Structure formats: structure tokens, C-alpha cells
């Protein structure tokens, strides 16, 4: 059976509210139950999403194409994993919340991601700037809350404020950009805009380009593209780890779907479209370099992941810049799928290790291979995939991106790619080195892993290899074009 597509969001929304209600009426149940409820609910949604097919939505501002469905799946999966992490992370949360009971504030912590997930799902279907703006803000605001969630933890709050101000700034630019696009084209709907653009008078091209660039800036902020990435390392480091994962996967992927739609829409007017592409190429170059180079000297694993997420944004932008090629969208999709798996996997391991360790510096992973080989292997796979070793998902992504870049003759980016991949090998393997070469720290105790996390890790490791060895699985995620 199939619903009208809009129902998925509503279901997720209802799920979030259900958790809130349970939270407010429950007395002494273990709040982790709620997370499990959320996971189950989202799993059901995922199943239905899997079953659902592209089709007309009956609304002008809301579209259900294969891309939308794919990205909805991505965010739902992400949210599931984030909830799993949150369960492992709950103790840390409690420590930093002022609470009478030991349960205080947990229910909301599980509910907010679900609501955010709903926002992201809306975002991935939005093709009207108004809807885009609103859902974008929904996501952003809930992230304000989540990032700053640990009130007793100065770092978390500082991250919150930084995210708040900078994000609001980028919102300002986005809105101003939308204004100009609207002003020139008289439209807020991307499809309409695509139709109208070729007919706009020559004098207005700067105006619409100006608007498009400002929108690009706003989205660049969301996907952590240089030079709008400065919030990323600080916020990633300060925020609760599950939220960091959520930020780096969820909000980045929806940012990319919107970016793709916008850039695509503007291709109808080459004079503007080509310059927009140039802009994207510039951003891609800056992002590649910044993310990968600045990661080289990192010693904090969470920050390292932040820089790596910047770097990967660079590769993704390469693919976006190749939008002229037939399968650039496909490249983005596959890369994001791979990125989702490997990033979430590393964050999951990070949460588990740092929950039983001293902190989240790389040195805290020393000798992990001896302490608990399973976790070490999981992280090894994640790192291999992030670095782009063949037969892992990460390689397939890089392969597609480079293919697209070569097809569209972006030799500058390819050249940078050579350098950055080298750097990538260096700083990802630094973690591997810590786990496998270094002797373990004082406490050799094996780290306990909950059933749920164990299952998650196994599944993700398997998926990474499956995607890497059988590309058709990944390519099936979204048909070409």
C-alpha cells in the first residue's frame, strides 16, 4: 500500500510528538525506551519509503522524485543511527544537564532529532524557495537547541552560540538572495524559475546571479564549504557527539539536495548557470584544500572528523560542479550514501570509545586493536573507506566524482584531488596507526558494546563493502540523471 508522499513527514512528526507526550506523562520509566520507540517508528517509515515510488505530489512547492525519496531515506537512516548513538551517549548528556531526576531532559533529547528528521524530509522534497526556507529554518533551529543541549557544558554552549550567530548570518544572506531571485524572476518556485529564466532581460542577469550566489553562500554554509566552513570544527567539537554526527551527515545531505536543485534550475540560462558553476568550482577547490590540509596536524579525533567532513564536502562539490555531465546527480547520491555509512560508523565507534575512555583525542585510541579488536576493525574499515581504498563504498564515491570531473574537464579540481587524496590517506591512517601500532594506554579493559550498537556497526561495515564491491547496488539508489 502507498500513502500520499506527504504522509511520511507527518508520520515522523507524529512520532516525535508521541515521544514528547510519553515523556511528559511517564514517571519513572527508563527514557531510553523512547529512543527505541523512535528507532522502531523510523524503521517502519524507512520500510515504506523503500516501497514508495516517485510520482506526482499534487502540490507545486513539493515534489516526489527519486532524489527526494533517496534523501528521505538517507535522513531517516541517519536519524536512526543518531538515536542509537544517543542511547550510548545518554549518560554524558545527563552529566551536563541540571536535573532533579536522573532521567531529566532525555526524552526531549530523543524527540528533537525525530522532529528535525521531519524537517529534513520536507527539505528534500521542497522545490519552492518558501518551503525550502521554512524547512531549512526548522532544521537549523532544532540544531541550535541540540548543539547547545548540554547546558552545564560551556563548550556545548559556546558551540551553540557560534552556530546560532553564524547560521543566522547565513540565513540573512540566503533570504536576501532569495529576494533577488524572486525580484527578477517574479517566482519562488524552482520549476517556474527554470522556465522564466531564459526570457529575463539582459540587465537583470546580474541581479539574478547575485541572488543565486547569495543562496549558494547560504547553502555553502550548511554543507560546510570553504570559505563558509569556519563554524564547523568548533561546533562539531563542542556539540554532543551524536548531534555532531547528525550535523555532518543529515544537514549536509539535505543541503546538497537543495544545492543540486537550485544549480540545476539555473542551468536553463547559460550566462548565469555557467558562472554559477564557476562559483561552485571555486568553492570546491577552496573546500578540498582547506578540509584536507588543515586536517593534517589535527590531534583531536572529533575535530579531525570535522575537517574530513569539510574535505568530503569538497569532493561532493566537485560532483555538483560537473552537473553538466549525465550522472553528476548519481555521483552525489552515491558519494553521500558512502559518506553517510563511513562517517556514522566512525562517530558510532567514537561515541562508544570516548564513553569508556578519557576523551576523544586520537591518543585515546592507542592500542584499541588490542583492547577491543572488533571496534578497531570497524573504525579501520571506516577510515579505509573515508580515505578511499578500493572495494569500499568510499572509493566508489570518489571514483564517480572523479569520473564526472574528468567528463566535464575540471582538470584544476582533479589536480587538487591528487594532493588531497594523499593528505586524506595521511590523516585517516593516523587513526589506524594509533589503533594498531601504538601500545594501549594504562587500562586494557575491553570496551563493552551494546547489542544495538554492535548490530549497527556490523551492518554498516557490511554495507560499506557491499557498496564497494557491487557498484550496481549503489547506482540503484538513484537512476542516472
Amino acid at each position, binding site marked *: 500500500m502507498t500513502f500520499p508522499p506527504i504522509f511520511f513527514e507527518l508520520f515522523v512528526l507524529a512520532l516525535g510528538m508521541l515521544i514528547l507526550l510519553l515523556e511528559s506523562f511517564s514517571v519513572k520509566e527508563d527514557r531510553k525506551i523512547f529512543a527505541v520507540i523512535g528507532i522502531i517508528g523510523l524503521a517502519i517509515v524507512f520500510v515504506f519509503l523503500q516501497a514508495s515510488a516517485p510520482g506526482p505530489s499534487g502540490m507545486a512547492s513539493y515534489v516526489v522524485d527519486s532524489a527526494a525519496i533517496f534523501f528521505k531515506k538517507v535522513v531517516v537512516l541517519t536519524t536512526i543511527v543518531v538515536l542509537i548513538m544517543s542511547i550510548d551517549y545518554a549518560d554524558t548528556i545527563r552529566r551536563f544537564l541540571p536535573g532533579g531526576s536522573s532521567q531529566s531532559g532525555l526524552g526531549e533529547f530523543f524527540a528533537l532529532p525525530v522532529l528535525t528528521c521531519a524537517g529534513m524530509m520536507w527539505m528534500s522534497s521542497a522545490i519552492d524557495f518558501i518551503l525550502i526556507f521554512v524547512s531549512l529554518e526548522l532544521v537549523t533551529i532544532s540544531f541550535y537547541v541540540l548543539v547547545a543541549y548540554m547546558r552545564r557544558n560551556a563548550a556545548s554552549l559556546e558551540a551553540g*552560540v*557560534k552556530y546560532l*550567530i*553564524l547560521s543566522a*548570518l*547565513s540565513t540573512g*544572506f540566503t533570504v536576501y538572495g532569495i529576494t533577488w531571485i524572486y525580484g527578477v524572476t517574479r517566482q519562488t518556485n524552482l520549476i517556474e524559475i527554470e522556465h522564466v529564466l531564459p526570457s529575463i532581460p539582459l540587465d537583470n542577469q*546580474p541581479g539574478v*546571479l*547575485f541572488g543565486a*550566489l*547569495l543562496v*549558494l*553562500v547560504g547553502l555553502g*554554509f550548511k554543507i560546510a564549504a*570553504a*570559505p*563558509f566552513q*569556519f*563554524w564547523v*570544527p*568548533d561546533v562539531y567539537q563542542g556539540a554532543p557527539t551524536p548531534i555532531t554526527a547528525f550535523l555532518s551527515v543529515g544537514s549536509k545531505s539535505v543541503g546538497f539536495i537543495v544545492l543540486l536543485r537550485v544549480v540545476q534550475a539555473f542551468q536553463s540560462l547559460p550566462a548565469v548557470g555557467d*558562472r*554559477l558553476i*564557476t*562559483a561552485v568550482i*571555486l*568553492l570546491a577547490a577552496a573546500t578540498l*584544500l*582547506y578540509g*584536507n*590540509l*588543515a*586536517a*593534517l*596536524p589535527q590531534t583531536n579525533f572529533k575535530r579531525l572528523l570535522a575537517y574530513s567532513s569539510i574535505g568530503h564536502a569538497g569532493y561532493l562539490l566537485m560532483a555538483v560542479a560537473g552537473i553538466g555531465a549525465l550522472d553528476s546527480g548519481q555521483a552525489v547520491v552515491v558519494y553521500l550514501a558512502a559518506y553517510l555509512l563511513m562517517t556514522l560508523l566512525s562517530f558510532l565507534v567514537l561515541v562508544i570509545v570516548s564513553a569508556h575512555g578519557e576523551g576523544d583525542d586520537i591518543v585515546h585510541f592507542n592500542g584499541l586493536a588490542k583492547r577491543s579488536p572488533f571496534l578497531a576493525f570497524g573504525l579501520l574499515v571506516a577510515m579505509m573507506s573515508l580515505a578511499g581504498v578500493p572495494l569500499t563504498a568510499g572509493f566508489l564515491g570518489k571514483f564517480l566524482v572523479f569520473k564526472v570531473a574528468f567528463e566535464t574537464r575540471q582538470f584544476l579540481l582533479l589536480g587538487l584531488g591528487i*594532493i588531497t587524496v*594523499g*593528505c586524506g590517506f595521511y590523516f585517516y591512517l593516523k587513526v589506524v596507526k594509533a589503533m594498531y601500532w601504538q601500545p594501549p594506554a594504562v587500562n586494557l579493559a575491553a570496551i563493552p558494546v551494546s547489542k544495538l550498537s554492535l548490530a549497527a556497526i556490523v551492518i554498516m561495515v557490511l554495507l560499506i563493502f557491499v557498496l564497494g564491491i557491487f557498484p550496481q547496488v549503489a547506482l540503484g539508489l538513484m537512476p542516472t540523471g
Partner: protein
Amino acid sequence: MNLSPWIILFAPFVSAVVIVLITERFKKLSSYISVAAVAISFVFSVAVFFGQDGTASFNWIDLGTFQVKIGYLINDLTRLMLLIVTGVGLLIHIYSIGYMADDRGRSRYFCGLSLFMFSMLGIVLANNFIMMFIFWELVGFSSYLLIGHWFYRPAPPAAANKAFLANRLGDFGFMLGILLVWSASGTVTFDELRGQWSTLGLSPGFMTAAALLIFCGAIGKSAQFPLHVWLPDAMEGPTPVSALIHAATMVAAGVFMLVRTYFLFEPSSTALGVVLWIGLITSLLAALMATQQDDIKRVLAYSTLSQLGLMIAAVGLGAPQAGMFHLFTHASFKALLFLGAGSVIHSLHNEQNIWQMGGLQKKMPVTFWTFLIGTLALIACPPFAGFWSKDDILASADRNIPAFLAIAAVTYLTAFYMSRLFVVAFLGQPRSEQAGHAHESPSVMTVPLILLSIPACIAGFPFIASLFIKVPEHEGSPIGSMAVSLIAFAAGAASGYYLYKEKTKDSIQIPLFEHKFYIDEMYGSLIKWTQDLLANISGFVDRWVIDGTVVRGLGGITWGAGFALRFLQVGNLQAYAFLFGAGVVLLLYFILFGTK
């Protein structure tokens, strides 16, 4: 097809393999196996000697357009060489049983010998350049093994390396020559080349170059100047080895090769001239050095050098037959001399300094007499073998006065230092107590001496020699040359005898000769200042420039860039806002106004 050449070739190979794989532990057995193998080869060589010419081959490598063949070519030259190699080889094998009786590494030794026989026979039988080159290399290898037999002493390994490297140097030229010949003619088979070479219409310069490069092989293998330095050192090996490899057969391979490929040299007078003078220079230098050596084996070694020089010179004179003739006689009496020396050294417990010998006439009669015969043969005393062959060479030089004089001088010097050697080593009073307790060697060693002295006596007579080899009958005045050589011989022998009679120490001191014209030292510094210097430079460059500076430098720059970039991340909110705005403005400017 005719199997016997293959049997001749592979019998020693089989023995070598068997020794390595199976009988390594049973030393006596190994030695017998090896001897048996040579005996087989010898028997079949005799058979081949009376058989008729022939050639056959199979493809070792077949790439359609390009084949490498392994095959044999039998003609008079092959027959003679086969006989020499297997015959002398057989005797020396037998001799070795006695000489090496109490050596730990006997199996290794005999394995080496068999391997050598295999390789040497391969050279002799080869019907094309590549096959010859293959066995050429193998010969070098086996000589390396045998020279380095006593690896636990300091000197032999050094000598072995020197020998191998010198040969490799020669082979570098040899291979280059082969490649040139092939790239010009498209074939490496002797028969085909003999037919085509002069008809290819190649530029004379090219032909000369090719011939001389081929000659390089001979220079290396036959220890001609300037690569002669390895042969004297090679005396560090066991004496039978010196006899077999470094006197009778291997060093003669160079000459053999020249004769085999004479057709390459014929068209180019320049090439022949070079060959001639290389030969003569070697011969003279060696003779001069020999006059001041005190080690019995080294004296023989230098005399070998100078005799080889004569043979080469003979080829250069356009009389390859004379060269072969001398090779034939020389093989017998030089082997005889070495074995004699060997038996002396053996009974004097490895005493090699002739000034520690003396008065051996009574104690070791057989050795004494046979050595005398050998000496007489070598110094061209009529009617011994050496007289005839050397006279042929002299005679073939009668048009070329300088060469003629040089050869005469060599004859004189030979007579001089050999008589010196003989007088000092055998006559007079014992000058050490080993010499006092010397005793005749066992029969297994003396019998070969006797057998070898027979050809040393008679092989020269034309009617006997002609059985084996086409003795060149030269027009002009044989009498003249004969007279000269007689005079030279007489003078040399006399002066040697009277100068050293009853002496206890050398009365003449000529450091230049004693130190072999300081050629070793020169080479030492040459290598030091060219190869080692370059090596160290490139080692340094590789370590510190390419790797240290460029590679590490790039890595460092990248890392440094990352380190610097981090400082944009100052943690101050307004700094971020500023950078954000700056980014926006730059982007806007570049895209809106920068690009068209």
C-alpha cells in the same frame, strides 16, 4: 643425428648436478664421478676427432622472428680444442684427486671442475655467438668458484671478484659487439656470418668497431692488457685449477674465439693491427714482470700471460693457425709446468716462494725432470714443442719488423726468467727446512706429469703436429726466423743460468717490474676516483636531495600549509563572521565582475 657432441657437452654437467644434489656428502665418490665424466667426454672427443664435420642445433628461445639456438659446430678447430680441453682436463682431474686429497671442500671443488669442463666444452662446441656468450659467462662463473675455493682466507675471495669483474668488463664489449653484428646482419650463427659478413656492404668503421668489441671478450678472458691484472691474482686458487683454467684452457678460449671468428677481423686491417699490438704489449709487459717475481706460480702466471699475448699477436699477424698451434703446444707444457709447481708446493706444504726452495733434484726426481722438460718446451729449446710453435709465430711476423723484434725479445725474456725460476727453485742447496724434508708426490700426481711431458716433448715435430693441426708452411726464410729464435733462446737461458746459479737471494732489483708497472695501483685509484666517487655522489643525492629535499620537502610544505591554515580557526566568532563576509564579497566580485 650425431649424439656424441651432446654427450661430450653434458657429461660433466650431469656430474656437477649429481654432486650438488646427491653426493655432496661423500667426497671421494664426488671426485670419482667428476673424473669419470671427463673421461667420458674425452673418449667421445677422440671419437669426434676421427669423425667428420657437422652441425646441428635446436631453438632455445623461439619468438618467431627471433630465435636463440643451442647447437654444435664441428670442424678441425673444434676437434683440436675438444682434444686439448678434455685431454688436459682429464689428466688434471686425476691429478687433483691426489692434490686435494685432504681438503674439506673437495666435493665443491670437483663440482666446480665439472661445471668448468661443461662450460668450456660449450664454448668449444658453440655454433653461434649467443651460445658462445652463454658458456663464456659460465666459464667465468666456474673460474670464480674455483679461484675462491678457499673462501675463508682473505686473498682468494678478492682474487675471485677481481677475475669475475675483469671478465664482465670484457663481456660488456663482447655482448655489445654481438649486438652490433646481429643488428647489422640479423644473424649470430658463425656459418651464416662467415658467408655474409664481408658482403653486407657495411662501413669499414662499423666493421672495425664490431670486430674490436668482439675482441674485448678475448681481452677479458685471455687476460690481455689492459685487463690482464686478474690472472696473476687468480693464482690464489688451487694449483690444478691454475693449471687447467688459467694456463691450458679457459684463458686460451679468447684465442680460440678469435680464431673462430677470424672472418670478422679479416676485412679490417685496423682491427688486426690493434689485436696484434695488444698481444705484443701484453706479452712484453708480462715477460718483464715475470723476471722479478718470487712466487713460483706467479712466474708461471706471467709467462702464461706473455704466451697468450703471443698467440693473440699471431692472430693479429693474420696467422691464426700459428696461434692455434702455439695454443696446442702451450696447453700441454704449461699445464705440465703448473702441475710440477703444484707437486713442489704440495710437498713443501704450500711453500710458494722460490727462494725457500732449492736442491729438489734428488728428493723429487720425477717432478724435477718433467718440470725441466716443461721449461725447455716453454723457452723454445729445440726440439721441444714450444720451439716449433713459437717459431711459426716468429716466422709469420717476418714482414712486420717491430712485431718481429718484439717477439724475439719476448723469446729472450722467456728463456731468461724460466731458467732463473728453474735454477733457483730446483738446483743448488735447500734454502729452508721444508725444502729439506721435501719428498716425491704420490703417483696419482706424478703419472699425469709424465703423461703430459710426452706431448711437451714431441708435439712440436711437424709430422706429429700435422696430425692434429694444419701446420702453416710459411714462405720467406724460415731459417732466418729460426736462427733468431735460437739466438734469443740461448742468450736468455745462459744469462738466466749464470746470473742465478748458487744465489740465495735475487741479485737484481727492478721495482718497476716487481710491482707490475704499478698497474694495479693505477686501476685502484682510477676506480676510486671514477666509480666510487660517482657512486657516493649519487648515493648522497638520492638520500639527501631527491628523497630528503624534494620528497620530504613537498610533504613538509603540505603539512606546513595545513598547520598555517589551522590558524584561520582562531575561535573568535567575529573573526569567523568577518571571514565569512570576506568570502561572500570575494565570491561576488569574482563571479559578477571577474568572469565574462
